[in-house]
């Protein structure tokens, strides 16, 4: 789907910039292009917001309203906030911008057999965004269906730049109102048939050559909160071969109830409990995605993922979240290999050192410490004498 100045699809292939897409939007585009498919969607860029504001002609008025406002006068702030937001939600959107937004929405819906609910979320550009309290983070509208609901909520996200909290925050921190802008993310609601978490290490010992996956049916909350015992699979990170697997009971699943816009819990039947919730191919796909996330973020990752019921097999694996794994990865990355030789332990003088024919052949001295391309006889002896292979 084509991206343009106002609309950027996650997979549209354009370079993501913070100024155009906001933090969240840029991150979603970056992740998609790095092979970490987030739920599909698009960003209504800051250019769209700017275009709207310019056409609405309310920029000056907003500036005047905010000028000299006292952050301690909450009722006055509330009044100003309400007025600005009402303006933003009522002024007409330029026809071209509106057409492009609708086309993007229809384009997104066209990827599914039938229209699916979406989430609309604000994506702020402010780089000094302190925490989730600032505009953008909590403005997430779920389960939206139809173009009307979507466009209305895009406006609400725009308007959220001027909530009382946002206004007060900027006033208190002396952040100017000039150049404020807002991008908005429109993204498919995840419809998890299987979901779970994955870590790019083995939490049992911090071994970074493994990928550990927990997987169960439905939405991942029951896994994260420990309400079900998921399947647990350990894969080799390099070859993605299964190293061990334990089937969990997975007795229940949370699935979306679309009409009620909520999740409902239901029993998992015996057949589905008894088999692994991921096929071999899906397992490899989850692991490969976790591996890409680790490579992308350059440190061990703890991801949440889901298989989406509305997307075709092979394209239905979604990355919901990726964050640095900090608990186990702070341990040594690998166990220390046994070095030194059995011979040394025995006290056999000279053993483990270069007693080999090095002196006769003039070749590289063997034994002792291993030189590049050399070998360590003591270690070889120790390997042979090791009782467990």
């Amino acid at each position, binding site marked *: 789907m084509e991206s343009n100045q106002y609309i950027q699809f996650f997979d549209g292939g354009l370079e993501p910039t913070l100024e155009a897409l906001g933090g969240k939007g840029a991150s979603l585009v970056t992740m998609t292009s790095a092979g970490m498919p987030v739920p599909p969607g698009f960003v209504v860029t800051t250019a769209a917001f700017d275009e709207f504001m310019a056409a609405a002609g309310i920029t000056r008025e907003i500036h005047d309203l905010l000028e000299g406002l006292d952050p301690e006068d909450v009722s006055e702030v509330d009044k100003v906030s309400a007025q600005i937001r009402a303006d933003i939600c009522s002024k007409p959107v330029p026809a071209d911008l509106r057409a492009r937004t609708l086309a993007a929405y229809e384009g997104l819906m066209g990827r599914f057999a039938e229209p699916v609910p979406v989430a609309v979320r604000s994506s702020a550009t402010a780089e000094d965004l302190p925490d989730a309290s600032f505009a953008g983070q909590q403005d997430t509208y779920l389960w939206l269906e139809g173009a009307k609901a979507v466009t209305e909520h895009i406006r609400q996200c725009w308007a959220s730049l001027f909530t009382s909290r946002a206004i007060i925050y900027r006033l208190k921190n002396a952040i100017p109102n000039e150049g404020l802008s807002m991008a908005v993310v429109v993204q498919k609601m995840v419809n998890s048939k299987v979901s779970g978490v994955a870590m790019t290490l*083995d939490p049992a*010992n911090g*071994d*970074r*050559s*493994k990928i550990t996956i927990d997987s169960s049916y439905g939405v991942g909350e029951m896994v994260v909160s420990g309400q079900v015992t998921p399947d647990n699979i*350990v894969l*080799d*990170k*390099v*070859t993605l*071969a299964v*190293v*061990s697997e334990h089937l969990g009971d997975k007795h229940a699943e949370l699935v979306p109830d679309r009409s009620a816009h909520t999740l409902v819990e239901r029993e998992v039947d015996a057949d589905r409990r008894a088999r692994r919730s991921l096929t071999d191919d899906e397992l490899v796909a989850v692991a490969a995605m976790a591996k890409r996330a680790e490579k992308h973020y350059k440190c061990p990752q703890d991801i949440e993922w889901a298989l989406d019921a509305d997307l075709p097999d092979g394209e239905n694996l979604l990355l919901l979240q990726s964050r640095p794994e900090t608990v186990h990865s702070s341990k040594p*990355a*690998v*166990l*220390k*290999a*046994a*070095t030194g030789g*059995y*011979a040394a332990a*025995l006290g*056999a003088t*000279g*053993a*483990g050192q*270069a*007693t*080999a*024919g*090095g002196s006769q*052949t003039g*070749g*590289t001295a*063997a*034994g002792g410490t*291993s*030189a*590049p*391309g*050399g*070998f*360590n*006889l*003591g*270690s*070889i*002896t*120790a*390997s*042979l*004498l*090791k*009782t467990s*292979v």
Partner: protein
Amino acid sequence: MSLKSFPKPSELPVPAGAEGWEKIYPYYLVFQDKLKDQEDAKFWFCDSQHWPTVYKPFETIGGEFAVKCLGQYNARHLMIPNANGIEFRVHLGYLYMSPIPVPEDQIAERVPHFEQRVGHYFQNWEELLKQWHIKVRGTIDEMETLSFSKLPDMVPMDDITTGKAMDGSEVLLENYDRLIQLAYQNWQYHFEFLNLGYIAYLDFFNFCKDVFPNIPDQSIATMVQGVDMELFRPDDELKQLAKRAVELGIQSAFSNTDDVDATLAAVRASSGGDQWIRQYEEAQDPWFNFTVGNGFYGHDKYWKDHQEIPLGYIADYIRRLDEGQEIMRPTEELIAEKERIVEEYRDLLEGENQALFDAKRQLAATAYPYVENHNFYIEHWTMGVFWRKVRELSRMMHAEGFWTEPDDLLYLNRNEVRDALFDLVTGWGVGAQPIGPTYWPEEIERRRKIVDALKTARPAPALNTPPASITEPFTRMLWGITTEQVQQWLAPARKSKAAACAAWRPPRAWSRASPASSTTRTSWPKCSRARSWSPP
């Protein structure tokens, strides 16, 4: 409750009709009544990996030479600190082995010798391996010169005029002795590098298991295996021949490859067929010295002697080419994938561990390819020539009336063959009938019945009481006989025969994926790969 022991040898039932089986094998190969206490005190496991079916008496030669020579390198050449060789016995027709540990108090004193010896080999690997090829080729070439022709009615006149004063029987006797000696010689050479290959592998293997706990064995193998190897050459030759046949458009000549002569005649009659035949003949030496068996049995079929086998493979490759399939191994991709795997594991390590990884992998990658490549030279090539010569001798003696079937020599042990040969030349020399034609046919029938009866029973996985834990490295590495494996055999719920058979597979560390493992598993469509002293 798990059982604690396997049956004693004397507790295994003798199949009906196999009574007296002990006497068809040399005395030293069977359990002895007078040593019962000692032998029952040892743990023996069955090597049905290399010898899955009952030995005919002559065929014990492979087990004897192989296991003896394996042991000598542990016990006498390399002074492996904790492992001597492996004692072996034939019981009810199957081979059982018992590894001999080194007493604890002697381990330390062997260490410096061990390190000096393996150090020399690892330091001079390439040069010593070059010499190995010369030695082994020399042995095979000499074996090829041996023949077992019928003796003439009269000593040739030339031998009279030159005063040779020998009747030619000495050549028959010498050639037989030489054949046995040359087989023995190449089995000694076989193990010159094999144990070393495993030692280098084990060193890297243990390191990987330390730094990457539970790393799949296959990953470790992949990092040290060769991609383009001599062992794959025979199959590659057939693929090239199939490609050439398609290029020449002579596919129709391969419609019935069971008829070798007709197939080759049809090729010759085709346009460009001569070109194909030339390539076919060039490929045969040495690459058709290749068996569909494992080299240890007289009934193994070698491509060279059964050309319907390679021709059948060629026909199959032609069919696949015509269907648009890619039949060549994607060598470059396999190498790239191997390099990726090495690089990714390496990148997980830092500092000293990374340097150790490099050194150990390099050594294993140098030493390990022998473990696979040697197969072609010994199990395939040497043993192919060996069994062909044995058949030649057997057929000559069959023609002299010694036995009723052409290959019945296999029912004599190798020292009895020497006797029978002297019987033959004596009868011939004095102008009388040899005794063999009177003695052997009846004796061979008796033995044939015993061998057939023994074949009706499967071997026990092991005999007697196992040790609490299996620590001997070669037992674990080469045969996959681990404490866990033994416990599994002893577990009461031994399910099916299939499960028991599967247990005989060597550990995964040694199970090489088929040559083109990561791409097409069909690259060896029909030839069950020889199970030899390499990871099958």
